[in-house]
């Protein structure tokens, strides 16, 4: 008798209830979708509203400047992430695209009077061509070799620009760089007296590029990039032309990066090779991505939010005593993150966020039920 009794309940959990629990689990998941989505949409709207309202509250130009640079770096890193994150390679020469964008639009506007808005697109297209030309031979390389090749190319371009006063008819002005005289303010000239218009321009650019990344990550291209980045041979056998997917990502990434170059030129009104085609800039983009979380959508934004203030404040407070301290801090943070959170700070934050939302939705459901 006792044997039978012990058999009966032990049979049930192994067969029936395993299936049951999974079914009920997926059921609650489905019901949970709508309040969860609601919370997500509302919090997203809230963040966007705060972002748009920020200049009304934050009137100090210094702080606004810092926030603009945060968005600028978040934009650059999100663009970088299409190749460096999704495609699983490590490009370390993206400053070259920033430089192409900045120089193209600035030369076109200084020498030919063409609006920087138009120059921005021209710069983007030139950068896109350059990106594809870099990608064609280098995407066959693996790991560090690809990174080294991109560094070499970017440094080559920087040295070339530093040593050229004229490239054909275009005045590069060598190491002295180009200055944009602050006259003819207005939207058509992409030049403003206050910082607010720059703030809104980079904010809209940032939202645009994040939306694009989100869209790509859910598309065939995103799946193909991820697959090709993780296991190229398996991906090829499943119908993925890995090299082509990477080239498409590189083309988009370099185009978008160059747009930020034009923004930077118009924002600072002064560009020179050391500031804009420098390895420092290329590395900083990669740092932000690695710390924030490569290959995730929120990673670049989180990384920029964390690291840019560190960089700016260490420059403000220690700049005289300890120049370059921000790079040391970057290094320390990078080492700590790589040891404890190799997928970047987005992973623990996502976990906390999910737990929070789950608690909120559960409470919401409980309230609805009662």
């Amino acid at each position: 008798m006792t044997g039978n009794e012990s058999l009966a309940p032990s049979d049930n959990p192994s067969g029936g209830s395993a299936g049951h629990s999974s079914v009920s689990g997926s059921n609650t998941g489905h019901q949970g979708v709508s309040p969860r989505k609601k919370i997500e949409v509302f919090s997203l709207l809230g963040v966007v509203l705060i972002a748009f309202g920020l200049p009304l509250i934050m009137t100090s130009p210094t702080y606004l400047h810092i926030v603009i640079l945060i968005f600028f770096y978040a934009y650059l890193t999100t663009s970088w992430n299409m190749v460096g994150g999704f495609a699983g390679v490590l490009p370390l020469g993206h400053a070259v695209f920033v430089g192409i964008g900045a120089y193209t639009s600035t030369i076109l506007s200084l020498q030919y009077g063409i609006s920087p808005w138009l120059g921005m697109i021209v710069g983007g297209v030139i950068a896109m061509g350059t990106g594809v030309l870099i990608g064609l031979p280098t995407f066959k390389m693996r790991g560090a070799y690809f990174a080294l090749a991109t560094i070499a190319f970017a440094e080559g371009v920087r040295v070339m620009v530093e040593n050229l006063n004229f490239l054909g008819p275009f005045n590069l002005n060598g190491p002295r760089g180009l200055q944009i005289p602050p006259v003819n303010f207005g939207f058509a000239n992409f030049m403003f007296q206050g910082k607010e218009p720059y703030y809104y321009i980079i904010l809209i650019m940032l939202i645009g590029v994040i939306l694009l990344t989100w869209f790509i990550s859910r598309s065939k291209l995103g799946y193909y990039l991820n697959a090709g980045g993780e296991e190229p041979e398996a991906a090829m056998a499943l119908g993925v032309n890995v090299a082509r997917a990477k080239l498409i990502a590189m083309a988009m990434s370099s185009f978008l990066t160059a747009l930020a170059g034009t923004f930077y030129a118009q924002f600072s009104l002064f560009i020179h090779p050391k500031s804009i085609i420098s390895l420092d800039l290329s590395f900083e983009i990669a740092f932000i991505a690695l710390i924030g979380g490569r290959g995730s959508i929120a990673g670049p934004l989180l990384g920029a939010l964390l690291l840019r203030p560190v960089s700016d404040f260490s420059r403000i407070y220690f700049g005289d005593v300890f120049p370059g301290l921000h790079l040391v801090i970057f290094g320390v943070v990078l080492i700590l993150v790589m040891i404890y959170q190799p997928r970047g700070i987005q992973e623990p934050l996502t976990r906390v966020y999910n737990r929070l939302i789950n608690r909120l939705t559960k409470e919401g459901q409980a309230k609805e039920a009662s």
Partner: protein
Amino acid sequence: MKILEVEKMVMRFGGLTAVDTLNLNIDQGEILGLIGPNGAGKSTAFNCIAGVHPPTEGTIKFNGENTNQQKPWDLCKKGLARTFQIVKPFASKSVLYNVTVGAFATTDKRADAEDKALAVLQTLNFEDKKELKSGSLTIADRKRLEIARALATEPKLLLLDEVMAGLRPGEVDEMVGIIQGLRDSGITIFVIEHIMRAIMALSDRIVVIQFGKKIAEGTPGEIASNENVIKAYLGEEYGTA
């Protein structure tokens, strides 16, 4: 109708001849087994047929078309899928994500691809694990994932490279059942396997290679009693047993 015709295929890597004037063909709807000792060139032959290496000499025809120079991704879209001996899951992604990558071979829409991936997972009794990270799967499930991804590309010919190695006997029987089910659904199957019990039960015909050369071809019964095969591969005990 022959779905695959391989004629006098030679594959050399430098001075090493991995596959030597190999002839073989597969009928539509057939299960062909390929066996041989380690290093005989079985996986190399698969790689040539799947487009990873173009063969040094000879011709490969898939569906009557010469595919010597075609790339793996083009062949995949024409209906030739394969699994890897050493499994290669997209480890940081879920099972469903992995299979959806394969399903994108025939559609551009994510919703369609996911639906198809789910249908494939259902036919393999794999649906309950769709949310698991593929890197955390057991070896048996990883092998099953290899097949699921390949199936999601809607193949006409499926190359299976040792999908049963490392499985427990019960799991081998289940896999044999799955493969027979695939053939019944109209897919032609070319399978490399070391587990004799499985390959004898599955195959309509078996090709045996050694040092890249074909040494025997025939029904499982003929192969089991072939003296060359017993000497080269099966061993004396198998012949007497």
